[in-house]
């Protein structure tokens, strides 16, 4: 299912042109108020945008030909910021709602619901009402409810923002598992969510897409100033090896794993540029990671200079740039404390 949208909503000053390929997760990344949720509502058919939305050959809305497919006929499920479970139904009936509405019998729908509740680890809570569940549990049920309708496209709106810090990593893990191979548009203002869940990222600012491309490229080498300011983190992909990240070239990056990862599993390391320091020789002492790199670019970043290398970007003072005589092509050593390297389970490398 390839989702294409070329839409505009004048009243909200939003105009975007998006393509999401079959099985791909596209992250719409941007600050609050950038128009991300508006785009989702337009794709779901909850708003009436100008322009066209199509799923493969099927036109869902086109103001030119006055085509309009109602939300319930689109096969597009929306997973909202808050779980929005129906308060008058228990968890099982919430999940069974979609299959029932799509014509399954009561028994079939109950079986479908049971299967998806199991998938998200909520079988034991099937008979609980939403108000008896924690925020994380509610979001699990909401995920099961959206997937139980077998949507052709899944729209996910800031799924972790309403959760406390403890529940967020679990739900992120669950999402990573269920979004794989599913055509998804994920809205988030968290660079980390985009880094860990998306194949491609479209950076949105003030209602427009300012940069779009493969996740690692957009996050580590943003093409727009806005993307650079907003995203601006280092993302290194590899596989887990004895609690560290093993890069493709065989070097290790030591860090802290947010949740346990088995050796050989794909992982992503996230490092803030401010946590990376630059040296000309291997420093003595504490940093566990000191890696050889070559400077590729120098650019102003607020009061600092962002030094881009073939491995990680680092934010350093202009004085340091002068002292180290940094220029394009300089051979440097990057030092990062292991405590500043955050390791997360990630999508398989083949998709990266």
């Amino acid at each position, binding site marked *: 299912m390839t989702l294409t949208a070329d839409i505009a909503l004048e009243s909200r000053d939003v105009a975007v042109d998006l393509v999401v390929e079959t099985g791909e997760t596209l992250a719409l990344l941007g600050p609050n108020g950038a128009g991300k949720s508006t785009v989702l509502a337009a794709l779901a058919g909850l708003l009436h945008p100008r322009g066209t939305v199509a799923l493969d050959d099927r036109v869902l809305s086109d103001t030119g030909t006055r085509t309009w497919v109602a*939300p*319930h006929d689109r096969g597009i*499920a929306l997973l909202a910021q808050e779980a929005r479970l129906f*308060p*008058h139904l228990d968890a099982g009936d919430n999940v069974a*709602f*979609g299959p029932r*509405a799509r014509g399954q019998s009561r028994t079939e729908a109950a079986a479908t619901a049971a299967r998806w509740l199991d998938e998200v680890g909520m079988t034991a809570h099937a008979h609980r009402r939403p108000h008896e569940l924690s925020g994380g549990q509610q979001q699990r049920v909401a995920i099961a409810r959206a997937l139980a309708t077998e949507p052709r496209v899944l729209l996910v709106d800031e799924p972790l923002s309403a959760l406390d810090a403890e529940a967020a990593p679990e739900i992120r893990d669950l999402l990573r598992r269920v979004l794989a191979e599913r055509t998804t548009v994920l809205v988030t203002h968290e660079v980390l969510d985009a880094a860990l869940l998306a194949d491609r990222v479209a950076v949105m600012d003030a209602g427009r897409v300012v940069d779009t491309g493969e996740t690692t490229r957009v996050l580590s080498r943003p093409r727009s100033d806005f993307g650079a300011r907003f995203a601006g983190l280092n993302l290194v992909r590899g596989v887990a090896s004895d609690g560290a990240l093993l890069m493709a070239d065989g070097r290790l990056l030591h860090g802290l794993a947010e949740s346990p990862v088995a050796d050989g599993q794909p992982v992503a390391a996230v490092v803030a540029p401010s946590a990376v320091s630059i040296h000309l020789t291997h420093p003595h002492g504490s940093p566990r990671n000191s890696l050889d790199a070559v400077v590729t670019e120098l650019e102003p970043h607020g009061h600092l200079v962002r030094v881009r290398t073939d491995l990680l970007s680092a934010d350093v003072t202009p004085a340091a740039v002068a002292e180290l005589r940094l220029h394009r092509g300089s051979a440097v050593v990057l030092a990062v404390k292991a405590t500043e390297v955050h390791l997360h389970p990630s999508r398989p490398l083949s998709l990266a």
Partner: protein
Amino acid sequence: MTRLPSLTIPRWLLVPAALGALLVAVPVVAMALTVDWREFGPLVTSEASTDALWLSLRTASVSTLLCLLFGIPLAVVLARTTGAAATLLRSLVLLPLVLPPVVGGIALLQAFGRRGLLGDTLDVLGLEIAFSTTAVVIAQTFVAMPFLVLSLEGALRAAGTRFEDVAATLGAGPTTVFRRVTLPLALPGLVAGTVLAFARCLGEFGATITFAGSLQGTTRTLPLEIYLQREGDPQAAVALSLVLVGVAVLVIALTRARRDSLVAGAT
């Protein structure tokens, strides 16, 4: 148990609040104290009285059903539309609420009476509405429907469209959403509105006597019977009034219990 919140309310508010409560309580208690209890049984079981009570219960029930039939769709339309037309429609639907009931009765007579706007049409169809039990039901529905619409519309607006949107993206068509999401979520408001409407039907007087008249067993509901008795036998009027108070208290108690269980399940 009710506990007086000591910090959040200014204490002086308790004085007018108590006076207001007394204004309602004293007359009701006075009725109960002054009624001749030895004569109570015979007074309320006279043929005229039981006729009136039975007619009141029947007509109020049918009228409440009609209120639901027309009022629920009206409330949904009003709650989910905006613009000048909706504002106009709302004012129109709520008109009976602010209109003196006797004026409502005259308006109904001008519409459905034999010499009214639709009189000839109804005549051709062999229908004679004015001064029949049908007229009682129409009068009660006319005055009571706004209570249902107002209460349900408030509940629908408070519930918002968040859950309806989710239901639609899960593949539920408008009718399924209405049946399985909209109505259940607005149920407390619907129950409250139904109780109000039923109570209003039961107490209807002005529009009924104007539009339907006062024929024993046909159009003379309990309030009309009470008014009539007051002329000749004040004690009977007080006794019948107490019956009406009893019915009202019973209805409120029953729905309160039911609504509490609903609200507990819905939060």
